[in-house]
């Protein structure tokens, strides 16, 4: 009995620092809770580091897939700012009334590109070439919940070839899966965001989706209406559109949308 009680006390001491309340409302420093698409991890870490140096607002980020983040916000998780990798999740939240009016802005855009394994000798220069019989399998994210997949399908539909392409499609549940399929040569080609493709050194960008599609691809950002720090949240978003942040975003292959 003694041994176990002692063990319990030791544990309580070790873990106490972490058990404090999630939202500190009484101290000077405000902590902003950001939920961000995981694809922005590297860029946002650097940007937030800069942001914290400039002021006394702390930033805490929860990285996950946009779908998971949306679900968490819908269930009342404490989030101040949400950055999504596609418009779909933000639209859903907006329709359900989770956003502060007029706080939504389109932050980044991206492009859907066609990639092929590095040593491939396939002659693919445009999306239409995928109809060729030499291409038997094409990997892309599931259009239902992977943003890049949603836009890739839109591209095919725009070109009017989705129905013929569909039998060849291998759907992945995330970016990493699609990249793996292409890297290992399990598929002849794959469709991803340009920023995802840049993660791998074993694939080559062969073509880009039509501009009309790429123009639709946005990473929206908005303030969630249950926030207790609307002001600082707004200032944070402004910082994301500022010059320092832009430089960092571009370093990682993202394009900040010019504000009109």
């Amino acid at each position, binding site marked *: *009995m003694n*041994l176990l009680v002692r*063990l*319990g006390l030791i*544990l309580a001491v*070790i*873990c106490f620092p*972490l*058990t404090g*309340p*999630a*939202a500190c*409302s009484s101290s000077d420093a405000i902590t902003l*809770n950001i*939920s961000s698409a*995981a*694809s922005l*991890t*590297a860029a946002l*870490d650097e940007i937030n580091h800069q942001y914290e140096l400039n002021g006394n607002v702390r930033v*805490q*980020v*929860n*990285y*996950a897939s946009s779908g*998971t983040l949306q*679900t*968490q916000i819908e*269930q*009342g*998780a*404490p989030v101040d700012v949400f950055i999504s990798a596609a418009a779909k999740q933000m639209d859903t939240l907006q329709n359900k009334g989770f956003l502060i009016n007029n706080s939504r802005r389109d932050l980044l855009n991206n492009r859907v590109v066609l990639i092929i394994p590095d040593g491939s000798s396939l002659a693919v220069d445009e999306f239409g070439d995928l109809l060729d019989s030499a291409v038997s399998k094409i990997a892309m994210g599931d259009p239902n919940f992977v943003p890049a997949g949603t836009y890739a399908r839109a591209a095919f539909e725009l070109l009017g070839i989705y129905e013929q392409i569909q039998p060849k499609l291998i759907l992945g549940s*995330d*970016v*990493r899966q699609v*990249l793996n399929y292409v890297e290992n040569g399990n598929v002849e080609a794959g469709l991803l965001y340009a920023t995802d493709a840049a*993660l*791998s050194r074993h694939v080559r960008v062969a073509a880009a989706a039509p501009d009309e599609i790429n123009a639709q691809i946005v990473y929206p950002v908005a303030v969630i209406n*249950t926030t207790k720090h609307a002001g600082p949240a707004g200032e944070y978003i402004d910082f994301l559109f500022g010059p320092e942040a832009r430089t960092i975003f571009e370093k990682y292959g993202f394009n900040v949308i010019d504000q009109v």
Partner: protein
Amino acid sequence: MTESYLSPLWISLQTVLTTTFITFFLGIAAARWMARYSGRYRNLIDGLFILPIVLPPTVVGFGLLVLFGKNGPLGALLSLFDTSIVFSWPATVIAAVIMSFPLMYMTSRGGFEQVDINIENAARTLGASEWKIFWTVTMPLAWPAIVSATILAFARSLGEFGATLMLAGNIPGKTTTIPVAIYFNIQSGNMDQAMVLVVIVLAISFASLAALAYWKGKARRTVPITPEAL
């Protein structure tokens, strides 16, 4: 750079130790109760206790999120005190406890059911209280099963991912455990970092298994608590 290894390691260590501690007592208590319970709702309660390992972890995580979110019963209660479990470190413990509890419960219960009821009855006729019987007869005789159960619970909580991500989120420095860190490193293409974390997890696993195997072997002939102590 090393911060990105130390942080998930430190968080995982705290989470796993706390979880195993809690699950150990909860699992044993539930197992003891159910091993000798013969009421009408036996199968129903048993099913409830085992449910978390039958469901996909993400589903369990979603259920917890609904429960602890602002609109859920527990979440609403907590928001009266201006706190929330979601995205906090205790959430990693809650998720891990829920996911490791069924293993601790099932294996311990098997151990308790194997103890000859006549032996426990003999202790009763000798005047020992139920509490004394549990600690001096039932537990020592079920000890190998208890140790196995603890190992399983420990391993499960070390590798817990789906429910943790849903409830605690992936907040580096706060709730990012090793499995979550590995996953997102792979997603981002940071293979080197992922590999280092994998090696760390393997090291922890082997070290713990060795320690527990040693403890189990030693405990074959001794009891943790002697009757005279009570």
